[in-house]
């Protein structure tokens, strides 16, 4: 079974100002494990909604999302919590680190939810932070004392905390300068390759798309092209 992700006829609508907007309109695709893929489209094309559906941060109206053969649209409650905790790792454009925890504690947090022991949490978090380029000194800093690029690296380390098979990154370079952005992309590519983790990046940056093994083009909630 090579398909890590299999999406079939996925739909999601929102009501806005009395009108129904089809944010995701019958999207189907499949993706192999360990691939670095990007979803590209204009603002409002539905790419973040699609990513939220893949990460179970939102519920689809219809369709299927099979992850390693399990349809997560059929899961509820605890199993969905478990999916978010163990199978996927999320990163955001504005990093969304917990402001009153330092870098190390931020990375330890998902492991705490997964019931990993305190000592192991600390050790693994340190290792992960070093692997994304955050040294011991910076690990003790709170997010506000780190640069944008550093915060995104911490967020990536946090996403990797419970060794997920999928990383979902929503505009990971959106708040970064070009050079730092590309370094982050390289880091994500390296993770996909070395850890055999499927990485899906939502972006509107064609340069990132060019560096991806697979690109999905979205327009008005529809998948218009993939290569």
């Amino acid at each position, binding site marked *: 079974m090579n398909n890590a992700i299999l999406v079939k006829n996925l739909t999601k609508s929102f009501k806005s100002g009395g009108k129904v907007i089809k944010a995701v309109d019958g999207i189907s695709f499949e993706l192999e494990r360990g691939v670095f893929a990007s979803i590209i489209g204009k603002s409002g094309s539905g790419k973040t909604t699609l990513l*939220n559906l893949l990460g179970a*941060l939102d519920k689809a109206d219809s369709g299927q999302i099979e992850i390693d053969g399990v349809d997560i649209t059929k899961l509820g409650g605890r199993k969905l*919590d478990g999916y978010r*905790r*163990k199978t996927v790792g999320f990163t955001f454009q504005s990093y*969304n680190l*917990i402001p009153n925890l330092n870098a190390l504690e931020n990375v330890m947090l*998902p492991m705490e*939810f997964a019931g990993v022991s305190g000592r192991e949490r600390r050790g693994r978090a340190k290792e992960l932070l070093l692997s994304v380029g955050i040294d011991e000194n910076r690990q003790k800093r709170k997010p506000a004392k780190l640069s944008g690029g550093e915060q995104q690296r911490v967020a990536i380390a946090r*996403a990797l905390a419970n060794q997920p098979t999928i990383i979902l990154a929503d505009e990971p370079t959106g708040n970064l300068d070009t050079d730092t952005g590309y370094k982050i992309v390289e880091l994500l590519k390296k993770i996909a390759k070395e850890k055999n983790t499927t990485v899906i990046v939502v972006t509107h940056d064609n340069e990132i798309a060019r560096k991806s093994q697979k690109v999905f083009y979205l327009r008005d909630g529809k998948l218009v092209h993939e290569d």
Partner: protein
Amino acid sequence: MTVALIMIMANQIISKRVEDVKGNVGNTISISPRGISGFEGGGNLLTEGDLKPISSYEHVTQVAMSLRARPSSTGLTSAIEPGTFGERFGQRAGPGGGGGRAFVSISVTGTNITGALPSSSLLGGEISLTSGRYFEASDASAKVAIVGKDLAQKNSLKIGSTFEMEGEKFKVVGIYDSGALFSNNAVYLPLKTTQKTFDLTNNVSDASVTVDSVSNVDTTVSKIESLLSDKADVTSEAERFTEALSPLESISQTTQVAVIGAIVAAVVIIFFSMLITVRQRIKEIGILKAIGASNFHLVTQFVTETMAVSLLAAVIASALSYMAGNAIVNNLVQPTTGGGRGGFAQGAGRLLLGLGGTGSLQVFNLETLAYALLIAIVVGILGSIIPALIASRLKPAEVIRLE
């Protein structure tokens, strides 16, 4: 929280004092043979058999039986001179009581009480032993006596002295002082000894029944009345004391209402502040869910955080109550002098403190601390569980993009 604690302390102390007072005043029932008062009147004396069932009644703590008599012959000299009052109304020695010298007779009381002397409405005054001892169980029918201070002085009686009465010899084992000359001119004997000496076997001239609380006097009175029917008059002062205590009990109720009010206020405040917290932290909740926090984690976190605040409040409130509570409660329960208003509260305070006899009330105790912790836990859980449940139901995608 401090208010609640202080109210709890006030409530505790008032309730405790009210119970003390109830157990100390107005809780005695007097039984006297119908038609007889002291040495006046007519009719039949009661018997021990008549009164026996009373001691097994519920709430009855003591049945003090007395037999009063006047000796017709004794070697003792009365400590009281007849004076003008005695000349006019007193008894006269001599045949037929018609002539002879006026005298004030010595009163003899038989009692079944050991370890104390019965307070007697006839003799009056607070009775305390100045030397020797009270009767003991082994004295039941022994020829021993406890005599009044003035009578002892007049007759040069000391502990171990003997005197003669009704042709019998009695040994002095104790000397008492009641603070009044009249009641110090008397002799106490064990009940059985008195019955035998005055040939009144099994007779009792009056009895005093003590119950555990003034609240239980009425029911006990009814029971005794139906037991003795037309043989005796049964009286108590319970009603008067119950009335005196009712304002205190209403203070106690007021403090209970205040406690509930303070707790409800605390729950409402915590509830709304937690709702505000949820709104402020809505994004954080979304992030935590996105990185794998379960609803259980979120609810636990919110409840724990609220509990921490709530317990901290309990600690601060306990400290404040410990420092200031005693003063506040003492002021609440015992207003100082002055002010026309609040006369009842003053009276009530005096009554409480007067009977407590310890002056300042030390009211902060382990029980108060336990209440503080209990309130903290209840307030913490009630105030946080609903906001926590609301938080846990949020969809991460809806809140995560908020700035």
